[in-house]
């Protein structure tokens, strides 16, 4: 017997011995000459066959936002932030999409076969649509972000999920609101609509007819499937670029009217300052670096692809710049793919970190010429003395600085 044959016999014997010592499906030790395998092999289940499931090693989750737990003591969902630190590309998975509500909401359990949308008020032809009828109408599919008015970074926050997690971006499908309004025939002088949901507070917002006729969507789908219940199943309004509260969920009714209605939602944004009112309406140009970001740890100096998200309520992102020296010098980042209007846009920047303390920032410019400001620029514009604490007027779109310490730890650098 050659030594080679002898080795093989030994190998087979050992293999049998090894297999008998292990349960089926348990992790196997790599055998000599074989590549190491996965931790385990899972048996199929009906549930995973039906709807799939992510790996148990992927643990990225949403978190309650703003110091109020969801669900709260009543069982209401309030504000829930998306894990932007783990985001790639521009689509937020539906299960991780941020959520906001006005008073806190129980999520309505709506049978879509019983749901209707009514359009009435100052129109020639008041209309009621079933979901099936809405799906017969001409549809559009568009990428749009939504962002909560309270998406505001502060020095007390650590991660990008805390500082910026109240925004997400999805592919939305539905009927243009203008298609439905034209079908109803809007009267002269009907300068506003009131859009209203079916949930327990029947949340309603006033919207200008100019916006309603421009690009608003009545959506029944997101990311290739039905809109999620937390996002307004079976129907939600999408108001691209406007603050989150306008994107009425569980949409049941659109009333065409001649005045601003001062609904409870409208009242919630009430302010005495005209600049505050204007800057809290259409979202400004904004961006944030998601990697490296607060709470993350770089293993050491060397090459990193810096990555982040940019967006604007005024149009498409036209330019993103990155600074690695705290805003003293700026270099163009690469915009990945097509920058869609009022959509998250992924940018990247190739960075060789020399291991010294650095401060990373990003700055967005949109295609109507608005530029994301630093907090210092905002303070200067409003003549706020240096060192005086202040809150950025309206929706906060100021630049987020991340400090990379020499040990590779990453920190929120807002003073």
């Amino acid at each position, binding site marked *: 017997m050659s030594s080679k044959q002898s080795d093989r016999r030994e190998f087979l014997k050992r293999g049998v011995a090894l297999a008998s010592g292990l349960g089926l499906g348990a992790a196997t030790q790599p055998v000599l000459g074989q590549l190491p395998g996965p931790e385990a092999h899972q048996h199929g289940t009906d549930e995973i066959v039906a709807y799939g499931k992510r790996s148990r090693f992927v643990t990225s989750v949403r978190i309650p936002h703003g110091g109020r737990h969801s669900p709260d003591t009543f069982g209401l969902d309030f504000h829930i932030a998306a894990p932007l630190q783990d985001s790639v590309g521009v689509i937020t998975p539906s299960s991780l999409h941020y959520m906001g509500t006005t008073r806190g909401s129980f999520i309505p359990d709506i049978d879509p076969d019983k749901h209707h949308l009514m359009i009435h008020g100052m129109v020639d032809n008041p209309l009621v649509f079933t979901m099936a009828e809405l799906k017969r109408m001409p549809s559009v599919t568009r990428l749009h972000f939504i962002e909560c008015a309270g998406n505001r970074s502060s020095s007390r926050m650590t991660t990008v999920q805390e500082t910026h997690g109240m925004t997400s971006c999805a592919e939305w499908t539905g009927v243009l609101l203008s298609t439905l309004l034209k079908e109803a025939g809007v009267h002269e002088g009907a300068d506003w609509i009131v859009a209203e949901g079916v949930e327990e507070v029947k949340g309603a917002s006033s919207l200008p007819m100019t916006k309603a006729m421009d690009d608003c969507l009545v959506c029944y789908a997101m990311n290739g499937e039905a809109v999620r219940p937390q996002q307004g199943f079976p129907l939600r309004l999408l108001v691209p670029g406007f603050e989150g509260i306008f994107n009425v969920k569980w949409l049941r009714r659109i009333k065409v009217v001649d005045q*601003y209605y001062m609904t*409870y939602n409208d009242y919630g944004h009430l302010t005495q300052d005209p600049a505050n009112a204007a800057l809290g309406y259409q979202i400004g140009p904004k961006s944030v670096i998601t990697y490296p970001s607060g709470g993350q740890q770089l293993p050491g100096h060397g090459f990193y692809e810096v990555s982040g998200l940019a967006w604007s309520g005024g149009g498409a992102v036209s330019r993103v710049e990155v600074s690695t020296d705290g805003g003293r010098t700026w270099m163009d980042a690469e915009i990945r793919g097509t920058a869609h209007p009022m959509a998250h846009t992924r940018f990247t920047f190739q960075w060789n970190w020399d291991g010294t303390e650095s401060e990373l920032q990003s700055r967005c410019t949109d295609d109507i010429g608005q*530029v994301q400001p630093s907090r210092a620029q905002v303070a200067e514009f409003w003549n706020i003395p240096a060192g005086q604490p202040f809150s950025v007027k309206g929706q906060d779109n100021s630049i987020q600085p991340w400090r990379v310490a020499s040990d590779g730890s990453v920190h929120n650098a807002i003073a």
Partner: protein
Amino acid sequence: MRLLKQVAALSLLPLLLLGVTAQAQSPTYGVGRAPTEVEVRAWDIAISPTGEELPVGSGTVDKGSELYLSKACAGCHGTTGSGGIAPRLVKDDVGPDVDPWRFGRVLPIRSPYATTVWDFINRAMPLGQEGTLTPDEVYSLTAYLLFLNDVIADGTVLDEKSLPLIEMPNRDNWAQVPDWFPRQPRLYGYPY
């Protein structure tokens, strides 16, 4: 024959008139149906500042103070309208002659219109039993909250006529949102 022509001409007239309106406003797709008037009345709960949708009814401060307890408002908002786990309903005590904005984020004092108070109670209260209050009960609860905030006097009767006429302290003391047009900056002169 002549008669027939006249009849034809007469019957064409309304068709022509209809044709003019129909050309401008007829549905393109013809999908969906017209709601009945009953459906519209039942669904139409949005109350404008001018109050034309307000239902007929009336209420008083006294009845409101009873309802505040019997409808369990006090359980969440506090027996005095503050100190509960739900938002406070009574203005902060900052003295009588101050900017109403300093009274705090309190709906029945900060809102420029009493209709917003009525509308929100009607659509969204009490928690878990929304939509169960009668119009009279909503008028009474609104009256009680406005009385607690020194907006109306004890003994005031609120109804669909008087409610929209209430002069809230912030009536003309708030910033309107700007007229909106596509691709315009959010605030002219502000580069950010």
